[in-house]
């Protein structure tokens, strides 16, 4: 499927307070383009979880959003420590986030499950010591 538009965002790993800026910008773009509100909500929440994960675990990364009328694809790529056991990480409640992150209200072990819940397709490619790439696909109708 041909992507008509591509947006790239650098996710700043050093600033937890600003996490979500890319998701908020994507939400604005999708709204301007007239995508349905429920789809916009699903995309922006799933992407926000990805941003948070990159900030917590990988000191930031890249977020790329590809748009076509039929599909929205979000690719989140980091060069962090990688996920040792993806199946375990996909379980609700499993988290390796440190205590200081939990005190901010994150690290509940819902990040990856929420990304799966809100997307139509999700693939996780991760190699320990190399990094993680998560691709989320959302069907526009």
């Amino acid at each position: 499927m041909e992507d008509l538009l591509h947006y790239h965002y650098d996710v700043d790993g050093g600033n937890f307070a600003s996490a979500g800026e890319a998701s908020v910008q994507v939400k604005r773009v999708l709204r301007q383009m007239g995508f349905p509100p429920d789809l916009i909500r699903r995309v922006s929440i799933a992407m926000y979880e990805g941003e948070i994960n990159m900030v917590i675990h990988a000191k930031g990364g890249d977020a790329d959003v590809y748009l076509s009328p039929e599909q929205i694809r979000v690719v989140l790529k980091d060069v962090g420590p990688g996920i040792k056991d993806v199946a375990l990480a996909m379980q609700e409640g499993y988290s390796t986030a440190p205590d200081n992150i939990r005190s901010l209200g994150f690290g509940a072990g819902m990040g990856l499950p929420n990304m799966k819940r809100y997307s139509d397709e999700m693939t996780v490619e991760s190699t320990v010591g190399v990094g993680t790439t998560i691709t989320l696909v959302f069907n526009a109708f």
Partner: protein
Amino acid sequence: MTVADLVQQSGWSPILLADDTREITGGYAGDLLSWVMGRGQYGDCWFTIMSNLNVIAVAQLLDVACVVFTEGVVPDAAVVNAARLHDINLIRTDEPTYAACVRLGGWMQ
């Protein structure tokens, strides 16, 4: 009920009413932000004791009708400024979360 109705009926203190005509269609209580993102709904009145900046991002992404800080929690100026930037309604109360939820539930019926 609208956010304006909620403020009037509850006596809770508005911190920022960016759009008090927003309709409240449900309620959710929670402090674990990812949990809230997984379960909260558009139009919810969200009760929380969490008051960092990420609360505003979550409120905006979920498009909740308002955030109610319970148990006497007061957000700092940076949080209020972020809410102003993103048109998020903020309210606070000294009431415990459970009591606040029960009251909202009564009014919503």
